[in-house]
């Protein structure tokens, strides 16, 4: 009797162990804690910078810029969003520098405009998925709107590059839908470039104009 009972216990324990291993192993293999930590540190630093009411508007902007440029690979994104027109910028260093500066200013202004609504909240990491081991990770996170209390689900595409892990895209998820921001920008810029026969300078002008509007808006809301 005893022998049968021991055997049954062992079998049950073994099955439970196998089940736990099966359940746990894919998730454990998929996560990348270094990428998660990169997002957590810099995203919260950016939100803290926006929430710091003791600092002047320009000081807040400077701190926000520092956090974002440490978090994201802005030059890589700047080339990506030009899509098939990127080759024109890569072959012209002067134009490349102009585009990079205009895009960085625009991106920071857009992020600041959007994230201002979440200033004071904190990003919480909820998981990550390693698409390519050690190189390409999607980090999943949440943050809560301090105004409405709603929870925003964000995904961060984090790629390994020359400067370590850097965010290259961010998406928000609602009701199963997701929009990746850099991809959306690429689509919008491509249509604009198509309409102007690929005139990068015209795109730079448009981006600068929009950046100026956004800065005015940020200044007005800071008053």
């Amino acid at each position, binding site marked *: 009797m005893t022998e049968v009972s021991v055997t049954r216990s062992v079998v049950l324990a073994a099955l439970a162990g196998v089940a736990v291993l099966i359940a746990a192993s894919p998730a454990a293999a998929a996560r990348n804690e270094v990428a998660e930590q990169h997002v957590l540190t810099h995203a919260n630093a950016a939100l803290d910078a926006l929430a710091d009411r003791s600092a002047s508007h320009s000081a807040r902007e400077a701190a926000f810029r520092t956090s974002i440029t440490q978090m994201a690979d802005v030059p*890589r994104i700047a080339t*990506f969003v030009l*899509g*098939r*027109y*990127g*080759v*024109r910028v890569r072959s012209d260093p002067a134009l490349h520098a102009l585009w990079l500066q205009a895009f960085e200013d625009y991106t920071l202004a*857009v992020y600041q*405009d*959007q994230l201002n*609504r979440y200033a004071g909240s904190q990003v919480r990491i909820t*998981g990550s*998925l390693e*698409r390519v081991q050690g190189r390409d990770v*999607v980090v999943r996170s*949440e943050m809560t*709107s301090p*105004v*409405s209390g*709603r*929870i*925003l*689900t964000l*995904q961060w*595409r984090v*790629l390994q590059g020359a400067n370590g892990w850097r965010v*290259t895209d961010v*998406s*928000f*998820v*609602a*009701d*199963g*839908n*997701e*929009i*990746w921001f*850099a*991809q*959306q920008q*690429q*689509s*919008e*810029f*491509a*249509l*604009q470039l*198509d*309409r102007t*026969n*690929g005139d990068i300078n015209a*795109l730079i002008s*448009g*981006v600068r*104009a*929009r950046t100026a*509007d*956004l800065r005015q*808006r940020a200044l007005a809301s800071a008053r």
Partner: protein
Amino acid sequence: MRTLILTSVVTIAWSGTALAQSESITADPLPQSAETSHQAVYDPFEGVNRRLYAVHDVLDRWILEPAARGYRFVTPRPVRGSVRNFLSNLNAPVVLANDLLQGQARRAGATVARFGVNSTVGVLGLFDPAQSMGLEPHTEDFGQTLAVWGVSEGPYLFVPLFGPTNLRDGFGNVVDAAFDPLSWTTFEGDDEFALTRGVIGGLAMREELLDPIDSIRATSIDPYARFRSLNALNREGEIRNGAAATDGLPDFDAPQEDDFPAAIDAEPLVPSTDGEGGPALPSTPIALNTLNPSIAGGAAHD
């Protein structure tokens, strides 16, 4: 306008007005959504659409937006939430019909259960107790049903006061309206109910979109392009009925061919069909079930 709210659901997230937590990360196949979304949107009437968008923009700034701001000003947030719940509950027959037409028995069951709970415990749909019981809301429409059946989206259309759509989804909206029993219901011989429902529904939707549309206008270098691609991406997600996917993300470092080299200093390669110049977009509509192989078998979260 209904399409407009669907289009902007994702930007609502940024403005923090309406969000739901979603499913966990999955690795379902996803089309190369963004870079191709620009190419995938079949917009042969772009010139006309842009003019219609301009008309819509003026009407919106002078009529719809002020009305929506007034509505927001005079109604507290819980009241607006109840109005949305009520209107959503009235739409349950349309959702149910499309659940069934798509062969989604489990979702159809959820729609029936939600309608039953919210119409009774939820006081004629003013509240949504079904959600707290685990019955998450979802939307379905005949445009999605047609997509599931393999119908291509057809040309992109921008309809003033209605928003971005395409031939398939526009037709779907007409069918949904025709199918909706409340479209034909009259009370004591007059049809004021349908009219009132339409006006309040439009106001409620535009109010919900105040922040997202404001954001698009502020941040976009080309709001027409933004609405167009958001509509395409949003509809992809709705048709997929699915959780977020990560498999189809683009390669950030892949060199992309400049496939319009002759267009830099020359006339447009192909005259667009609207006579405005500029290279034409791909001339063949891309079937959505080609774009997204998981359309018919998506997860149960809309």
